[in-house]
């Protein structure tokens, strides 16, 4: 009993696996998200070609435009990697630049999505028009909502970095935000392939 007080204070924080608890918890959460998007994507696939009224996907999807926005989103993942590298090295300028770049590229992607949604609306595709409208807007809408949350998260980190509160000791915070960001990107790759590229 006497040596209780002599134990190192960190005793409580050693984890069984050596993995950080927050990171592990976030991975588990992403696992759950996979099923969420999986169900949305599966529904899209089930209803592919089932619309009884136009406009149909082939008449309305703008593949070149969305290819550009896809490229933008994928580049944002690269920016995210550079931002994390900046934080890990304690390089404030690099951190600030690339966090902002990631958020900006994410916002640009959202801009493309807003443009696309508006254009579809003018061409007569709404949530109510047909099954394509319902499944398309809900699936890409939920993805867009995830990107929006990611952009807000990145901007909050950027403000912290600006105030000098995002040093190397907090690299894990940025790493977890990065996990989320890359996850959302990967989901988009699946969506882009299945909605836009697959005949």
């Amino acid at each position: 009993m006497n040596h209780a007080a002599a134990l190192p204070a960190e005793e409580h924080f050693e984890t069984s696996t050596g993995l950080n608890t927050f990171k592990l918890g976030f991975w588990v959460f992403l696992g759950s998200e996979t099923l969420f998007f999986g169900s949305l994507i599966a529904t899209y696939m089930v209803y592919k070609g089932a619309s009884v009224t136009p406009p149909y996907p082939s008449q309305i999807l703008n593949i070149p435009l969305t290819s550009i926005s896809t490229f933008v989103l994928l580049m944002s993942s690269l920016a995210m990697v550079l931002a994390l590298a900046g934080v890990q090295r304690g390089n404030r300028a690099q951190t600030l630049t690339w966090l902002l770049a990631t958020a900006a590229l994410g916002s640009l992607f959202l801009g493309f999505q807003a443009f696309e949604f508006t254009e579809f609306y003018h061409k007569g595709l709404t949530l109510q028009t047909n099954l394509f409208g319902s499944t398309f807007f809900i699936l890409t809408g939920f993805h867009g909502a995830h990107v929006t949350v990611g952009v807000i998260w990145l901007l909050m980190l950027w403000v912290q970095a600006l105030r000098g509160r995002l040093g190397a000791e907090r690299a894990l915070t940025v790493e977890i935000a990065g996990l989320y960001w890359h996850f959302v990107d990967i989901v988009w790759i699946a969506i882009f392939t299945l909605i836009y590229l697959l005949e």
Partner: protein
Amino acid sequence: MATAEARVRAEFEPHGGTGIWSWITTVDHKRIAILYYVTSVVFLVLGGIEALIIRLQLAQPNGTVISAETYNQLFTMHGVTMVFLMGMPISVAFFNYLIPLQIGARDVAFPRLNALSYWIFLFGGIFLYSSFLVGQAPNGGWFGYAPLTSKQFTPGLNADFYSLGLQALGVASIMGGVNFITTIINMRAPGMRLMRMPLFTWMSFVTSFLLITALPVLAVALFFLTFDRQWGTNFYQVAAGGDPILWQHLFWMFGHPEVYILILPAFGILSDIIPTFSRKPLFGYAVMVYSGCLIGLISWGVWAHHMFATGLGPIADSFFTISTMIIAIPTGVKIFNWLATMFGGQLRFTTPMLFSIATVGLFTVGGISGVMHAASPADLQQTDTYFVIAHFHYVLVAGTVSAVMAGTYYWFPKVTGRFMSERLGKWNFWLFFIGMNLTFFPMHFIGLLGMPRRTFTYSPDLHVTNLNLSATIGAFILAIAFLLLIVNVLISRRNGAPASHNPWGAATLEWATSSPPPEYNFGRIPVIHNREPLWLPGKEEVVEAAQARPGAIHMPPPSFWPFFTAIGIVGTFALFLTGHWWAPLIGVAWTAIGIVNWAYEPTH
């Protein structure tokens, strides 16, 4: 939070207080467990009252106690309550209390997230029940089949309360799943390898995986329903080419893992209690673990056995018949292992043991009727009749609820430091046993004789009057049994015989620390060398460490933000009811305020 929380104190300072505020802000897994338990019992009473009214209506043919519309609302809310507001959360109460104690942790991985889960559950439950105030409780059955839930057939708010309420509860379950998985993987005591964990923790682990994988599918199904109803999308609209069967697929892809979410914790409880009162280690520990994992895995491949009557075609029917029958194998393994554990043991027939033995026996009855309607041709006869009601009440009441009663009697001394009354306990058990069988056994025959479920009345020509009367009498006996449980808890909490730290002579780690455990659980985290740390050599060291005077322990401080954030999250869903697209944004903003304050709250 982890490293920021490190703060060296010479002595542990408890986060004091017992007032309302201390409960609202608590992040202690043991107090949250008690909140979960008490809330679940309140919902058990509400769901029970609904069942009793249903049984009164059905006591005689052509019953006139309630109208058909009220009947619809009652059976729907009975199902929703017992699954989402009683069955799941009461298991989570046990997860919360026991997992950290069984693996040698001071709390769960994310204590504030844990509190958030509870508050979302509570507010979500209140939201669902508020539907009675406007007379528009959900009325489309607990599985709310499309297209019955569409605006066309359910113009009122009934289906909105259903979809939005369940959506909120699902969020809480996913958070809980993330929390428990992380806790079990990462917060075990030194030497507490996965294959040394108590079976209850193992089954909680499997259940948590089912929670995080099944609930998102329900979330998607419910979002589709909400959007169909609020914004005119076409997911379940036949006229637009939509397929109502999509709802059934999504719902049961969630719904069948859900069945195991409800029963696996019960299996875990039994696997901890039976060895204690047999004075023998669990027979085939590893096989018990593997069969639990296998049940969890296969539960993902059996969902369409709920849908044989929809005409899936012979290939799908065959596949799901076979997969469903296969799942009976690991389940059967568990039953034989419990029997083998008892075989040759020094059995002590305490109340928890009685409930456990009854669970093994009666669950098997439900399991066998389950195999019966796994066969798709037989299922066509049985589906939507009282036979199905008999089946799933045998697995859920005689399985889950009975195991929960066993668990209550078993762990009560740990929670309160006092025994529950054994005398009342025996009464409780026998009334439960008789009431349960009297209520649900006749339903097998009622169903086979052709009485459909969810019909508010029946004709005397069906010749099921006496059977129904028996079920009604049984239901009231069952109600008395539950009342006795509550009375026993209330009396024993103050007046029960004092219990030592290990009053039953159990083997698992939660019994090493004092009863009730201190806020920090273990003075020092014990080092574990085997599966039965309190039976095998080295037990003195384990107990000594567990009850050691605490040194520099940092426990997370209370927080108001989980409560605040939960209001925002449930509010977001509730505000969909207004029909204004912007209204939920108020809830989103409220939630955002909560999250930001949460993120910047000092945790030390």
